[in-house]
């Protein structure tokens, strides 16, 4: 559906405002559903616990790790339920 058709159906007359509202609606759809998923890969580094999340992330669908002993398949890992007691390790 084009922006013009949406404007005509909704009775809107400002293109810029309608485009902004469409962006908001797409944002809301993406944060409430898994309409379209994106994949990013990053290096796992020895002795490093913290990794930056992509800044365009809305909600995580899955986190996988490369299993190098099983034909290099990415396998989904579980989310931790409990909170670890170490908040910062200065000598990892």
């Amino acid at each position, binding site marked *: *559906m*084009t*922006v*013009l058709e*949406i*404007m005509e159906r*909704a*009775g*809107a007359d400002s*293109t810029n405002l309608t*485009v902004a*509202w*469409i*962006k*908001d609606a*797409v*944002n*809301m*759809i*993406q*944060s409430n*559903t*898994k*309409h*379209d*998923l*994106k*994949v*990013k*890969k*990053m*290096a*796992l*580094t*020895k*002795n490093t*616990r*913290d*990794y*930056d*999340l*992509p800044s365009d992330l*809305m*909600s*995580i669908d*899955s*986190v*996988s*790790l*490369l*299993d*190098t002993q*099983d034909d290099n398949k990415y*396998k989904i*890992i*579980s*989310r*931790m339920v409990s909170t*670890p007691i170490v908040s910062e*390790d200065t000598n990892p």
Partner: protein
Amino acid sequence: MSSSVNTGWFWRLKGKKLHIYRLKRSGAGSIRANGSLTSGGDELVYPDETIPNGIRLEYTAYIEPFVDTDPSVLASDSSETSWSNASLTEVTSPDESSHVNLNRMLSLAVVSYVKAMLAEMGGEVQSKEYYMREFFKKVSDNESNKRMQSITYPVSPFAVR
């Protein structure tokens, strides 16, 4: 070499950071020289190896909201076994001729959203609430269209209760 990652690795979110832990299994407890028993508890450790592209993250994001062609129309549909989807190119500066990168049902949901925003601008809060309900109804309809679930009820043996 990472192995059995699905059972031995865990993640958690902390603000804008992803934390990765490995479960280090320490096995059963052992008996010390003085006869006391050590506890053999498992412990969480930081990743103990480096793997290029080792972490794969799948997530929802704001992906190409406007494109140059209609995303819900096939590019070619010559037979039952021969078809292709339209090749979509993102439009970075959308205008009235740009297509919203959503299927028909979600595009109708967007129409309801725009109506809700127009009602809000006009101070019609009740109309806004009505159109927002329509928006979420269409979004959830679109989600349920992907699922095949059925609800069955037992048939009563008696016509008259």
